[in-house]
């Protein structure tokens, strides 16, 4: 594998939220948040919908098709890949 040659590092086939993080809805913030030791990240709606589906069972394609149906849009796979990549970089996903 020559990772340098690829535009993106390999993404997990079935991304899974790390056990160090907890995803929950906070009604006061009206937002989903990621909670981890002594920290919290507020998520926007699309990030939250993607991360909620990162259960280690769904494939990226499954997540994309579910969200395309939910939001009645097409071609959101690149957006999902980008967020998953960022999630891997930050240690949220593996």
């Amino acid at each position, binding site marked *: 594998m020559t990772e340098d040659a690829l535009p993106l590092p390999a993404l997990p086939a079935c991304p899974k939220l790390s056990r160090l993080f907890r995803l929950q809805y906070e009604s*006061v913030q009206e937002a989903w948040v990621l909670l981890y*030791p*002594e920290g919290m990240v507020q998520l926007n709606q699309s990030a939250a919908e993607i991360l909620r589906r990162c259960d280690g069972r769904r494939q990226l394609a499954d997540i994309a098709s579910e969200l395309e149906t939910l939001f009645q849009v097409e071609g959101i796979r690149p957006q999902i890949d980008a967020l998953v990549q960022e999630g891997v970089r930050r240690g949220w996903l593996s």
Partner: protein
Amino acid sequence: MAGSAETPAPPAPPPGPPLWLLAELTYKCPLHCVFCYNPIDYGRFQPELTTREWVDVLTQARALGAAQLGFSGGEPLLRDDLEELVAEAHRLGYYTNLITSGVGLTEKRARALKDAGLDHVQLSFQDSTRELNDFLTHTRTFELKQRVAALIKAHDWPMVMNCVLHKHNLPHVDKIIEMALALGAEYLELANTQYYGWALQNRAQLLPTRAELEAAEAVVQGYRERIGNRCRLLFVVPDYFEERPKACMNGWGKVFLSIAPDGTAMPCHNAGDLPGLDLPNVRQQSLASIWRDSAAFNAFRGYGWMQEPCSSCDEKEKDFGGCRCQAFLLAGDARAADPVCSKSAQHEQVVQIVRRAETPQPISQPLVFRNDAESRRLSAARTIQD
């Protein structure tokens, strides 16, 4: 809560929710650390809240929006109702952090805390060597901490190790990192001593030189590049070596709410040392009114309280003028710019303190260990000088 139809508009927009609740369950502690950040006069924060009162605090804060909850102290394991409070916090939906020295964390209590839903344990170490760990805490706790670290891993908690850094252990930072890696910590907080309270008493002995600090930082950076995400290394430089102040508490009364053992509510855990601040108590007032309306929580909210150079500074929204406690301790005025800032008229003081650390000084006083006798002595004197 409308009083009358003609209630005047509030002067500032209402504050956002207190996202972070620090529950300082007790100031009792088996350790006697020379850099303890508890108030010097910790004895006055009594009597401690009962279990029921704490549950009420947790419930109120959760309703206000608090999501992160730290159980701290002193040593929170000295409270035998810790498991009960964790269970209640878990039920309320908090992410629960136990911030501990490890003393008192037995297999039995670890299991009970796991069952109660505790999310994470932060374990403090004072050094990678038994000699220094035990000397700085005035205890024999080094091996115990190693056992507790194994217990934390056995219960599958994420483990943050915290090591307060200063002149004496900065040269061991590589060994401290190796220890954290060997014990399986997911995060290592290398927090340089900040000079408040007990640490301020010991500043002459604890403040490193700039070269010592930079050498340690380079070691940390080298490890970061090698270990990647395996363990996140946080290295917090002492304020005194900066040119701009930290955004202390992310802004006064903005996201952080600390409750002292007796129910005193504080916008920062050092706020008890600020003069003229009438700190509210959960025994007398609801948390909502404390957070939104109390004079103490509004004292440094927004920008109206600022003096020059802060009030016209284009960075004020970034750092909020720095730390109010440091402004008071160094400039004698809690409304002044934090003297760490190079724009402060008092900045030269900080420069001089750092410069003095460059030349070995004859030791003029022994290290002051945090204990009841020293607390009484210092509280009686209450003169904090260079």
